[in-house]
């Protein structure tokens, strides 16, 4: 690709004097706002069960259970592609990665449109699930190390801004998709085919703008007036090679912390609507529950920016201590709120919990940078995202099966979630212990000048 499209090369993206680093967060947001659409894919599920019948499902129409696999495949491929392509993303540079992500994301939509047109679910599994999933993985990690290099003074805030975009993407995509489908719908047509084509083209343009804007800093660049922070045992100035990082206990401790924080959050996030209605029958209606879900998505997005920014001041490890301790208190408080019928306390707990769920994602790149240096942070981050995939399976399963077990054993629906809340609180205790054991990486893992990865490497990216 480098000889075919040389403008994508890392060397062509080095910023010239006069470039303002505040252009890089919008470039990152161009990508994350687009791929964040994944969280809103469910708006297509019901219309896609009526592609033949139009007004209602007809024989031959797809079932919801079959359509659910599209999102599941995309999320699984996200974790796999982030892990597999992480090193390529790091070495190829952000523009090449963003261009690839944009092409795959738009391609995924266009192939899915073909799948809708030919009424072949397998084509959609391939398009949105596999090719779109690759775009999710590559796009998610593409701006991470670039932002950290541009903002050595505020790495948490910088990555928090981009990852906030992933949370915000669904807020944009959901009403846009519904509006487009309403415009293209006709008495003989649900409008999904055209909506996929329009969204694919729009996302391609948006992501290409991001790829065009993005720059990496020159090797000797530093922000004006920047003074490297005082020596801190938990902030390394040495780099660790990606495949050496996974051999360290620190990597797996942080993996565990992210996995447990995400498991706890994802279980609540996916079930908030049903849980709130069952815990407060008569008080929270289906419409109000939909409002709660909307409010939670705002706090999920806001938490990504605010918690990561806070971590710049209190430190990454302390931020996760806050997640674990505050999370424990809030999960234990939820059954109390249910028992006393205190809706406001319940909503408050859920909103803070979901903000910490988002904060867990956005703070982790800076945590990895503190531990393993900036050079391979995106690649290491890519491998760490397998914790997200694992939590995506464990979280909903835990909450659903425990609720089901309680209900079938005679526990009233209003109290069926109590055990789950206590289990989630217990998970956070384990997370607290894992975080407690995170120490500075042993110097034997630090990259030396004669490391094979340094052979022929072009020094790019600045202030470590």
């Amino acid at each position: 690709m480098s000889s075919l499209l040389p403008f994508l090369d890392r060397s062509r993206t080095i910023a010239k004097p006069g470039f303002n680093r505040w252009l890089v967060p919008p470039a990152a947001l161009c990508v994350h706002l687009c791929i964040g659409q994944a969280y809103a894919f469910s708006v297509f599920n019901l219309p896609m069960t009526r592609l033949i019948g139009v007004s209602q499902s007809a024989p031959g129409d797809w079932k919801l259970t079959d359509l659910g696999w599209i999102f599941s495949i995309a999320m699984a491929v996200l974790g796999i592609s982030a892990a597999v392509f992480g090193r390529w993303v790091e070495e190829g540079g952000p523009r090449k990665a963003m261009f690839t992500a944009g092409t795959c994301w738009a391609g995924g939509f266009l192939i899915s449109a073909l799948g809708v047109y030919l009424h072949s679910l397998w084509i959609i599994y391939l398009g949105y699930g596999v090719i779109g999933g690759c775009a999710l993985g590559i796009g998610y990690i593409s701006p991470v190390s670039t932002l950290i290099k541009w903002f050595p003074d505020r790495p948490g805030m910088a990555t928090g801004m981009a990852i906030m975009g992933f949370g915000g993407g669904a807020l944009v995509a959901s009403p846009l998709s519904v509006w487009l489908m309403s415009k293209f719908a006709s008495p003989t047509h649900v409008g999904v085919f055209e909506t996929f084509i329009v969204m694919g083209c729009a996302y391609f343009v948006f992501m290409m703008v991001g790829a065009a804007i993005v720059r990496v800093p020159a090797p000797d660049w530093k922000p004006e007036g920047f003074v490297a922070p005082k020596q801190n045992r938990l902030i390394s100035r040495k780099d660790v090679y990606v495949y050496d990082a996974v051999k360290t206990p620190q990597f797996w401790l942080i993996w565990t912390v992210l996995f447990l924080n995400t498991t706890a959050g994802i279980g609540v996030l996916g079930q908030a609507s049903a849980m709130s209605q069952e815990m407060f029958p008569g008080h929270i209606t289906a419409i109000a529950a939909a409002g709660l879900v909307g409010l939670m998505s705002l706090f999920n997005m806001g938490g990504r920016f605010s918690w990561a920014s806070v971590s710049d001041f209190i430190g990454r490890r302390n931020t996760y201590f806050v997640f674990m301790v505050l999370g424990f208190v809030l999960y234990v408080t939820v059954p109390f709120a249910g028992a006393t019928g205190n809706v406001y306390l319940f909503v408050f707990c859920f909103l803070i919990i979901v903000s910490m769920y988002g904060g867990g994602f956005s703070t982790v790149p800076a945590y990895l940078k503190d531990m393993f240096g900036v050079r391979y942070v995106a690649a290491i981050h890519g491998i760490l995202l397998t914790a997200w995939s694992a939590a995506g399976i464990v979280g909903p399963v835990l909450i659903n099966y425990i609720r089901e077990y309680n209900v079938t054993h005679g526990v009233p629906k209003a109290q069926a979630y109590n055990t789950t809340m206590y289990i989630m609180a217990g998970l956070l205790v384990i997370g607290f212990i894992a975080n407690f054991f995170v120490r500075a990486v042993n110097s034997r893992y630090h990259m030396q000048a004669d490391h094979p990865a340094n052979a022929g490497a072009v020094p790019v990216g600045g202030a470590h």
Partner: protein
Amino acid sequence: MQNVDQSKTTTLHLVLAWCFVGIPLLAGVTQTLINAMKLFQ
């Protein structure tokens, strides 16, 4: 061929770039807030 002045970021560049991502995001947030208000009705 290279002209350093051409690469200098102006305020207009910054405003355009932030509006490009900020306007859709703000529209999405506003729409979500409107829907979320149903919780308090």
